[in-house]
């Protein structure tokens, strides 16, 4: 047993607080918006220049001038404001966004993150990921616990050190995988700590699939 994508998103939503401004990456992080508690005010930032991102438009109401950072058509809300890319990343770099939830290829026990480049493969670029992980106050990674290789084998993604080129160093605060939840003391020496297990998952299951060192302090 492990968490589904939806359950991972639901768990990530517990990191939201009333009044937060949040940037969600593509993939599972996008699903987090389904689990914002009723009555909680959370404004979503899209780094291409928008605060207060609304839902997808109804069919036929798409506006080519209104897209998110994943280039998907979206809508605006009464609270929406638009701004330039430099103002948008001033907001990001300046630490004004409370929370960034994003995916990763690898996370190291010191909070290093790799999610933009695999040597030997076509590199598409880092987009805004390096700015987000460097600038946002709190960075939450949501990812599968292991990578499934083409030959059917599995490779750990929670490592003692990333071997892929980094997106940022000592930037990750929390990792949510399909097997459990880890905190990382990114600016200190506290390392990585397992704090929650997915339903039916044991600490031993996790140890078997985790290359990085961690201590356990389950609630």
């Amino acid at each position: 047993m492990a968490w589904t994508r939806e359950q991972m998103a639901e768990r990530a939503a517990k990191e939201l607080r009333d009044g937060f401004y949040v940037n969600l990456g593509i993939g599972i992080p996008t699903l987090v918006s389904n689990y914002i508690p009723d009555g909680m005010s959370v404004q979503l930032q899209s780094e291409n220049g928008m605060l207060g991102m609304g839902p997808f438009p109804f069919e036929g109401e798409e506006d080519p001038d209104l897209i998110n950072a994943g280039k998907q058509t979206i809508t605006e809300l009464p609270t929406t404001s638009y701004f330039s890319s430099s103002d948008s990343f001033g907001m990001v770099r300046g630490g004004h966004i409370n929370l960034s939830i994003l995916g990763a290829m690898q996370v190291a026990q010191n909070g290093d993150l790799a999610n933009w480049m695999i040597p030997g493969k076509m590199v598409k670029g880092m987009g805004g990921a390096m700015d987000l992980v460097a600038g946002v106050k709190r960075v939450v990674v949501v990812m599968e616990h292991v990578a499934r290789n083409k030959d059917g084998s599995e490779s750990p993604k929670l490592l003692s050190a990333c071997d892929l080129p980094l997106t940022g160093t000592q930037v990750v605060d929390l990792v949510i995988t399909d097997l459990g939840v880890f905190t990382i003391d990114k600016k200190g020496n506290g390392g990585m700590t397992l704090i929650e297990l997915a339903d039916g998952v044991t600490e031993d299951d996790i140890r078997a699939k985790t290359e990085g060192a961690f201590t356990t302090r389950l609630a």
Partner: protein
Amino acid sequence: MKKVRKDATEALAGLLTDGMTVMAGGFGLCGIPDELIDAIRASGVKNLTVISNNAGIDGVGLGKLLETRQVAKMISSYVGENKEFARQYLGGELAIEFNPQGTLAERIRAGGAGIPAFFTKTGVGTLIAEGKEVREFEGENYVMERGLFADLSIVHAWKGDTEGNLVYRKTARNFNPMMATAAKVTVAQVEHLVQPGEIDGDAVHTPGIFIKRMIHVATREKRIEQRTTRKRGEPAIPPAAV
């Protein structure tokens, strides 16, 4: 001093030279100066360095300049959506300098504002910082990045008056405002051309000082890269919870 020109070809007359650096506004296909790109293609100018967050898609936007091999180098943050780009890049025909998106935006803003260099924590400890000065301020490390300034910027705006005051629409704003400030000459295409006084001075995004020439573009179909919708009755995702 007339800024409005008849069409894109006339607006770019005398401005294009082989080997020049061109900034092009837009994010994905949103807010791209497509008519000016078409005119650059028609001019046949070669060996361009193009500064743009993305590289268009096949047959659209900057993708058109890639097809004709007019681009020698791109400075971008993300270039994923273009087969012709991938082919030329993997074949060594096209150089690319990746910049983190926020660093790219800030480098352009700096170039336009007379700032030759600034420090940012984006990219510290990554490939991006290699060969660049890293310095500690208040116990944290920052990498020094340089301002960018082009020979020509081409931008797209929703509305413009004949003085060159521009207003952008929604997320089509993106890189356009900074790029308008960061070139020897900036040429704008506007969807709605109006007279001075028709744009409230408080609502101007780009003051006319930055715009040397401009054209009115007849409404053309704007392309959508990722058409995402919801059915009526479906829950609103992302949510409207405010």
